[in-house]
């Protein structure tokens, strides 16, 4: 590791034709329970980009003592998070190192890094793409990695660690209005007994299955490996009036220590523009309930929330067992006003001959669903149904000095052990002052029921921005007759390359919008946080 770093740096001296840039993000926090020497978190991530003609080298180093989520990285040998080399010319692309892959809509193969949840399912290997001509590409992938996967939201709990070896080939065909792709992948997964044992805590059909077989294997404590095959096909069609997309995966896998299973994943979406009205319809059906899939990250089929309070009740998609749909209708008027309607519904497959699974008619029973009948969801509670309705009205005034956004968000979900219903009114107002200054206000109200216990929440956050140079924000977050979280934030853009943010107070976890951006933040008790971003 040390030799690699020194070699990397030496190259930059030797080859003057190298271009490059670096970016650093440092986060430090000390809450009431922490000390300066042992802070709540101290995370530093350095990205190094180097370019040599057609060659591109990326490295990411991390020093965390401790990080927001995950294990400490204090030793030199642990610091290298990501490394890959890319070569590309007119006919051929090659990537060696960490492979971040996305083919089609990701139903079979989508690897990516998300620092917010300490997630990285990339593999170490080689990806090559040959451009046969303007219409056809052919690709191959080969790699291996022990992928860490969390099944518990508690950071201290041990994650799963599953070794994977993967080979894949495929092709892309691109024409003017239509494109196709096909890929085939073979991958071997190796589970140690400790990983199998931890999977009993999954609240899914797989968890139930593992819990059922554990008494039979706890004396032998066997490890297990399985070879899985996936075939993935998809197409996209575009015209002047809209789009059509379809993708399907066929999956052949084993139940852990059990028989061979056949599963499938399917995704369909269509978009049409009718007299300025946009209508988007998505359908998903992910049905591999006994597979612990590490490479599939398909479309979620519901709306990601932009509301601070609603983001705390976000639906957790089960990529191996969920089917449903999303309908969105929106229209923007010449006056600048936008109206949006979004509806999403999903449930799980159940492997129980005593329960009749819902059919497509029930699934698309919009009129019944739209009446927001609580009993309708209750009828399907064994299938863990989820439903979300969102309405929004937003726009600028004629002088474009005042912006308004009013929303209504309704979420209802039957989880394994409890039921949630949340109604939220998110609002945002912006007033532009002279000389590039502005005032921004977030104000939200939420009533939430967990089983039959009601809680009410308020969120109020005003902020002032001064000519893009600095901004100051207040946060007031309260649960009625209970806790409150109050904080202040000051952010200064030292110059175009350096930004420093200082926070003091308490913060609930979830989406936080301040300083001109919205990011997911962990829960934080009384204390100080500092974030520094630079690029050089």
């Amino acid at each position, binding site marked *: 590791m040390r030799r690699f770093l020194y070699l990397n740096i030496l190259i930059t001296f030797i080859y003057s034709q190298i271009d490059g840039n670096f970016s650093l993000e440092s986060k430090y926090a000390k809450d009431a329970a922490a000390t300066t020497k042992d802070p709540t978190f101290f995370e530093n991530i*350095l990205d190094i980009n180097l370019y040599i003609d057609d060659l591109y080298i990326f490295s990411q180093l991390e020093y965390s003592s401790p990080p927001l989520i995950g294990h400490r990285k*204090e030793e*030199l040998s642990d610091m290298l998070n990501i490394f890959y080399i890319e070569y590309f010319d007119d006919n051929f692309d090659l990537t060696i190192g960490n492979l971040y892959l996305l083919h089609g809509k990701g139903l079979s193969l989508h690897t990516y890094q998300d620092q917010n949840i300490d997630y990285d399912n990339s593999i170490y290997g080689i990806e090559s793409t040959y451009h046969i001509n303007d219409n056809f590409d052919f690709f191959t992938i080969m790699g291996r990695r022990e992928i860490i996967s969390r099944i518990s939201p508690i950071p201290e709990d041990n994650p799963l660690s599953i070794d994977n070896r993967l080979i894949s080939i495929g092709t892309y065909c691109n024409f003017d209005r239509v494109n196709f792709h096909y890929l085939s992948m073979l991958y071997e997964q190796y589970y140690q007994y400790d990983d199998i044992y931890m999977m009993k805590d999954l609240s899914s059909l797989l968890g139930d299955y593992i819990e059922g077989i554990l008494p039979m294997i706890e004396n032998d404590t066997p490890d297990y490996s399985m070879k899985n095959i996936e075939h993935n096909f998809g197409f996209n069609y575009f015209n002047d009036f809209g789009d059509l997309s379809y993708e399907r995966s066929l999956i052949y896998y084993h139940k852990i220590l059990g028989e061979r299973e056949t599963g499938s994943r399917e995704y369909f979406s269509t978009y049409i523009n009718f007299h300025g009205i946009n209508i988007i319809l998505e359908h998903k059906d992910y049905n591999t309930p006994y597979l612990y899939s590490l490479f599939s990250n398909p479309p*979620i089929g519901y709306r990601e929330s932009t509301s601070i309070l609603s983001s705390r009740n976000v639906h957790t998609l089960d990529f191996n067992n969920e089917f449903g749909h999303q309908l969105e209708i*929106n229209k*923007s008027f010449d006056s600048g006003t936008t109206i949006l309607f979004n509806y999403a519904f999903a449930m799980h497959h159940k492997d129980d001959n005593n329960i009749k699974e819902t059919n497509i008619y029930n699934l698309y029973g919009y009129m019944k669903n739209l009446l927001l009948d609580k009993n309708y969801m209750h009828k399907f509670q064994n299938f863990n149904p989820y439903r979300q309705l969102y309405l929004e009205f937003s726009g600028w005034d004629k002088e474009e000095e005042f912006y308004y956004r009013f929303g209504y968000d309704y979420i209802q979900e039957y989880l394994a052990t409890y039921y949630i219903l949340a109604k939220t009114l998110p609002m945002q107002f912006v007033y532009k002052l002279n000389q590039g200054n502005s005032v921004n206000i977030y104000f939200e109200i939420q009533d939430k029921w967990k089983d039959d216990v009601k809680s009410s929440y308020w969120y109020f956050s005003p902020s002032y921005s001064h000519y*893009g140079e600095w901004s100051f924000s207040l946060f007031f977050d309260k649960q009625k007759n209970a806790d409150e979280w109050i904080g202040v934030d000051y952010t200064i853009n030292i110059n175009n390359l350096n930004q420093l943010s200082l926070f003091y107070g308490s913060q609930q976890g979830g989406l936080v919008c301040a300083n001109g*951006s*919205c990011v997911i933040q962990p829960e934080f008790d009384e204390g100080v946080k500092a974030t520094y971003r630079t690029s050089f």
Partner: protein
Amino acid sequence: MPKYFFKIILLLFFISFIFSQDKLPTAFLKDLDGKKIDILDLHNNGPMAISFWFLACEPCKKEMKYLDQFNNKYSENGFKVVSVNTDNSRTINRVKPYINSKKYSFTVLNDPKSFFLRKLGGKICPYLILVDKDGNIVSKHTGYNPGDEIKLEKEIIELLVDAKIDSTILDSTILDSTIKLENEKPIILPDLIETNEPLDEDQKE
């Protein structure tokens, strides 16, 4: 152990002075119809703004309204806005309907793996870089608050002036354009072009 990490940062910081000016790297991204495009082909020897955004980012959407105005206002003078969406497969199918609903004039490309964002040193969105006519990255902006577009427009006009565009072909919108800030001296472009002198310090900010 932290001393190694921070020594590396310091070393790289000093090394960065050895490198030539930060150049716009090549990248192949797909447009909303799946057609592959080289970002350098879009550059076309004119100043350019590249803006990164995603659907759940409300500040990004507010900024795009002004980027569309700048693209319309200054495109005849060689300036171009390229908007790069970073939604991955989870939500990417709703990008095109959103763009079509807003009828934006600029080019929109997809960067679902955030590779290009990473190449340009971006960490969070909105993230905007300004590129001069020679392909040098001259400015980077993280975040957006309403009102920031005023400072951004000044930077764009400075880029156009620095490009030493022939005044005889400048669009009348540029020639007549002034940016007036209360209690500040207005910047009047025809004076700058005729004298071919750089902006005074009090005119720059």
